[in-house]
């Protein structure tokens, strides 16, 4: 049981990051679940450590929030698949979140950098 509870915690922590990553991936155009998973995996394998399966609850949540939309389509290998794309709302959210993250990371970087540099 202890391992599963740990997974829950991790998911909680990573949820926001995962959402951001999905939105970011979809910013380049529509994609199906597998493609999103692969893209995220390439960028950060930490988040999807528990498996590609945990991508789907996040997709469902974003769908419900209206950040993304789903449509049926055909994959590059001629396979019927479900494609996700960013909505206008999702795009706005992505840019807002991105600038927030950038601000935050700049601030963190400033705090963590040695004071001597700040003086120079």
């Amino acid at each position, binding site marked *: 049981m202890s391992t599963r509870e740990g997974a829950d915690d991790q998911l909680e922590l990573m949820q926001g990051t995962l959402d951001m990553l999905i939105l970011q991936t979809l910013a380049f155009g529509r994609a199906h679940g597998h493609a999103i998973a692969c893209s995220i995996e390439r960028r950060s394998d930490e988040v999807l450590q528990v498996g*590609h399966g945990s991508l789907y609850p996040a997709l469902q949540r974003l769908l419900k929030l209206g950040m993304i939309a789903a449509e049926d389509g055909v994959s590059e290998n001629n396979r019927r698949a479900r494609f996700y794309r960013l909505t206008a709302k999702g795009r706005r959210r992505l840019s807002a979140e991105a600038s927030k993250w950038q601000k935050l990371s700049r601030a963190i970087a400033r705090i963590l950098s040695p004071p001597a540099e700040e003086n120079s």
Partner: protein
Amino acid sequence: MFRWTRRRNLLLQEFETHIAMETQENIDAGMTPEEAQHAARKKFGNVLLAAERSRAIWGGIWIERLLQDLRYALRGLIGAPGYTVTLLCTLMLGLGCVTTMLAMVDSILVRPLALPHADELVQLYGEDRAEGTSASPRALSYRVFDELRRGTHAFAGVSGYNTMIRPVTAPDGTRITLLTEVTQDFFPVLEIHAKLGSLISTAGTERGVDVSYEFWQERLHGDPHAVGSSIKIGDETRTVIGVLPLGFHVPQGTGAPVVYLPIHVNASGEDDFKIESALVIARLRRDVSEEQGLADAQRVFSYVDRKYGEQYRHLRIRSYRELVVGDLQRPLFALLGGVGVLLLIACANAANLQIGRAASRMPEMATRLALGASFARLLQQLVTESVLVSVAGAVLGGGLSYAAIALVRHAYGHEYARFDELALHPIVLCCAGALAIAVGIAASLAPLLTIRRQTAGRSNAKNVTRRSRLPGMLVALQVALTCVLLAVSGLFVRTLQALENVRLGFDPHGVTTLVLMPEKQNQDPDLSRNIETRLLERFATLPGVQSATMQTEVPFSNYNVALNGTTEVDGRAFHQGDSAFYSMVSTNFVQTSGIRLLRGRGFQAADETSSSIGVLVNEAFVKSFLDQREPVGSTLRFHRNPGDKDDDLPFLQPMTVIGVVENEIQGNDLGAPFEPMVYLDYRQLPAGSLLGMVFSMAAQYAVRSSLPPATLASELRSAIQKEAPSMVEMSLRPMEEGVAQSLGERRLALRLVSGFGLVALVLSAVGIYGVLAYSVALRRREIGIRMALGSTRSKAAGLVMQQAGIMALLGLAPGVAAAWAAGAAVRSFLYGVKAFDPLTAGAVGGTMLLVIAAAAAFPAMRAAQVNPVETLRAE
């Protein structure tokens, strides 16, 4: 729901596509198809968990889960019919009993009386100074009533009434009927309007009567033209001017037919009896509290010119609701406590049954956890199942209590106040439902703990005999609670026995009592007395009759007139509150009643002409007034209070004690203490004495005969028919019937409590059996191995019996202590037995041990039949 299923299927399809793509990539990377498939699945993770988590995001999952759980629970329960039926019956009994008692408490005590603004209605009553705490309703005189009506400001209205029983002739014949004489303000104060016709209120209605809805239905056949028709009260013809609405049960609170007639008050403000007979109901002004109302009434009461006993009384106030149902409050709450205990027992049983079932489902639980079900999810499922069963139990119990309520209403509707209003109201059903859910959750907590412990542990439950202490504790609790119920019923049984063995002081065997009333209410007292004496002589000469007497106070009669007189004894200083009851009897009293003469002699025919008035006194009188003195020959007289005129005393002549008789039961309660009593031969009463009046109200005869009661009854009736057709028979029954009837209320209580005790006993037996049977099933391996190692069958059985014995002891010890406490709580209902009765305790303990032994015998036998070879083979 279907939408969700479709969506879930689409999602699962999407997962499969995902995995297929991954597999394809793996194959492209050079893996074998199997490896590729395996790797892809591994990378994806738990498919069902992902589906479940996604599903959770869509919302409404709890409904789906609940439905899922319900479906699953139903299937599981149907799969285990023995378990389900036992559990259902347990909960049905527990919840049914509680629902019934809740409905009674709700209908009788909680529900507002069916009168407009009933909370403003109060009763004003007089209370003896001596017994300050008693709340027995004491009537006021109509004079005082009238002063209260005119002099107080705190009340919106003050009304008076008194009740009596008279023969009433309606189209369906003559029957003894309850009459209520009311003042003109009565109905206006109660803010009641007629269903038909008009109500007694203003001038011009002096000859009219109103009838209750029940009277209209039962005696006038619900005739819509009943208003204007005539009924006869005694020999007087009265016109029905109105019918009261359904549910108007003032003042008795019962649904008996009642005729209301205007009270006749003479010019000096007294009613026909010239004694205190007005019961007062008043309506407080909206902004006035009970205390303020009482203070205002007391102000008036203090300056009114009062007579007789009234001058020594205090004025008191209480709510009208208390007047109607005050007496029922304590017994009802006691019974509610009893069923509460029963519900606890049922709940413990349910918990034990579920622990057993949960344990047998442990492998299933472990599998589900391993497959990714969260503990909370399992918890929800178990609780759902438990609540489902207990709600089903509540529904069945509700049906049970509906039947029980209907039965009680039918059987006691006319007897006890508000019992005719008994009903299962929605609020009670809601309470029962909430209780059922609480019981369901509580009963599933114990198995949940077991599951949590066992699944959290690493040990494999299959190979270890795990024993939880919880079921044993629950059984001990059951045993203890059952002890309480059994002990209380035991005390009630002993009370009834004690009452049945009370020295009656007279011999009821072969005595028939007869109550007659003159048809004409205001008949001249002397004429009544003549007729009654003639009848008495006639009865005494009937063949087969040994003797006959008249008595104003007959034990167990409902027609007794209690005459309380302030009494002084010559040669003894008078103390405030010295009073005795006076009973008027005829010459043959001692012979007929079989009362034991302790000293002196009984009445003789020759006494009639003697100059002094001879009286008999009872032991209680001797104890209070003639202690350490020779009673026979003592002289008594009525005490004259300062300011009393001759007219105010029953008579002035002194009385001489001629004999002392044993205490005999007075009134209706076998357990009541004996009051000082003086017996007067009515023929020696001085002419014009107030006491002579008594005989114009009702004449009570006691006839001793060796004839069978039915024969004697017909002989007496034909004698009345011939000798005094103007007398109406109110009651005719063997006295032993009265003795039995007087125990009716206690019998009812005993029946209820011992019914609860019996149910508790059965539930406990089932509980013990269940726990032991389950424990034997669990310990089969252990027992098998023990046997293989040389233990005998009887030792195996002993193992089980020992376990039962420990549970019994754990339960009996606190049970006996709790029974003691419960005995103390119901002490006021007991007679002739102490709160802790060793005999009862012993009997209860013995019964419990027997039942436990019987319940344990079957599992013990099963343990003895364990085949060691089978166990070893399985090993």
